[in-house]
């Protein structure tokens, strides 16, 4: 007897994100999928994670997930309500944030992120959100997890604007700039990547079920390091899917 477990690529990515978190870590999150990943980790293997939101919220227990950092739904039952200076200064800049989640318009082969601007084919600059706390998290968190859709226009050899630094142009560059940490993984809807310890270039760590390495590479604008043996990303469990659907995001805000 077999049963098929239905899940979306969103849910697979959220589960992959959750599994990157260790119990007891301090995690900086913003909007969307990372929030689902964090609350999932907290309800499974990592109950003692501390979640911080840059505007001044520690460890909320929302009963509705809310539409972003500024939505009071996301602040409900916090353990502390403070400020940017406290969260980004006294926790992040002091070096206490273990993991920061980042997303963006584009990420490149060295994990640099662009959330600021894109040039369109006519040469016109299109402006976007900018940094917010993104650059700060990318500069001072012990490690960052990048979540991005798997499309060639988003996975570039070099981003057109570095909003949040990854390993810059590779090996040793980040340290030279006086930065700590760096991206540990990039999670897309087709694969999970990490970074080569020497060159700091992006490397395939695992590909998701129902995908091929050809499909993964065909939808990227650069060639990552591909190991000889390619792992498969572990599929979500029934419990994880249940928690996302019924407890964390029952209204489907983020699916």
């Amino acid at each position: 007897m077999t049963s098929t477990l239905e899940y979306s690529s969103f849910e697979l990515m959220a589960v992959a994100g959750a599994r990157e978190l260790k119990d007891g870590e301090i995690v900086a999150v913003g909007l969307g999928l990372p929030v689902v990943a964090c609350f999932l980790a907290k309800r499974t293997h990592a109950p003692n994670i501390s979640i911080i939101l840059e505007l001044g919220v520690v460890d909320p227990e929302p009963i509705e997930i809310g539409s972003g950092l500024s939505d009071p739904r996301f602040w409900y039952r916090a353990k502390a309500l403070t400020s940017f200076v406290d969260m980004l200064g006294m926790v992040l800049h002091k070096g206490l944030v273990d993991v920061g989640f980042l997303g963006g318009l584009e990420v490149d082969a060295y994990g640099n992120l662009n959330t600021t601007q894109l040039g369109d084919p006519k040469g016109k600059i299109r402006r976007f959100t900018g940094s917010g706390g993104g650059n700060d998290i990318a500069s001072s968190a012990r490690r960052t997890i990048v979540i991005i859709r798997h499309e060639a226009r988003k996975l570039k050899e070099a981003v057109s604007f570095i909003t949040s630094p990854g390993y810059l142009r590779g090996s040793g560059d980040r340290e030279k700039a006086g930065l700590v940490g760096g991206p540990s993984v990039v999670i897309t809807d087709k694969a999970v990547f990490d970074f080569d310890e020497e060159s700091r270039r992006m490397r395939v760590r695992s590909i998701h079920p129902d995908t091929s390495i050809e499909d993964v590479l065909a939808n990227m604008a650069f060639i990552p390091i591909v190991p000889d043996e390619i792992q498969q990303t572990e599929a979500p469990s029934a419990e994880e899917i249940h928690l996302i659907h019924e407890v964390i995001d029952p209204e489907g805000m983020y699916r």
Partner: protein
Amino acid sequence: MTKVTPLADAVASVLPGSHVALSGFATARCPMAFAHEVIRQGIKGLTVSQCVAGIDADILVGAGAVDKVINGGGSRGRSGQHSCIVRAYEEGKLDSEESSSLSMVFRYLAGALGLPFIPIRSLQGSDILKRLEQISPPVVSRLNDPFSGEEWLVLKPLIPDVAVVQVPYADSEGNAWILGPLWDNEEQAKSSKRVIVITERLVSTDEIRRDPSRTVIPGFRVSHVVHLPFSAHPTSVYDLYDFDVKHIQLYAKESKTTDGFSTYLDEYVYGVDDHWGYLDLVGGMEHLNTLIADPVLGY
């Protein structure tokens, strides 16, 4: 000594060309009634600053009141980009000094503490820094840490002419409480040369003295106290009312185009005499009542 004044008088105290810090964050605690009155009075040439852009900055930029925006970026969250700011950037009509949330709050903090400069780890290696380094007079520089010898970036303090802070409770002297997270509001207000408090509820000084740990802004920094309920609408004020999803969707839709935004302004800003007219227009007490916060949830 009471500092309670009508909104129009407080707004009239803001000189054209001055630097105004705004208390909003995306769709929370934006001084919208203040922004509307700035537009109605035709005050121009402002520099506006805040850590993360709110609808307060967007509507002021859209109305042409702003020459320069200083912030760490920002959007409305899931309801999208600040279209007026994005459009003004893309059309080259707006000067920008964009950094990051921490850079912004460190600059306000330095101003609040009377520091001449403040070191930061952020921005290194980024194109944000490259852009900031082109600004003259400089807002960023480098120093060697005399204790370790390492090179550090240092930022210049940011000292607004006036901070406009939307709060739930204040007394007539301007002693003001903010409930919920404070984001940059304390450092912003304490760096600024003076503060205009826009309060939802005007309380007695005795009420302030009952729980003085909540006082984020002391009265001695405040020049004007404006008492207006729902003056952050359509954004939220934690503990008092929720943001108005439908009106924000309307604003989002209209502000996508210059014409749409112009229609919005004509109807909701120029088309009303004052804040009371605006509140009637958006649905009056019957509608506003649906936004009133549950006292436990805070929204």
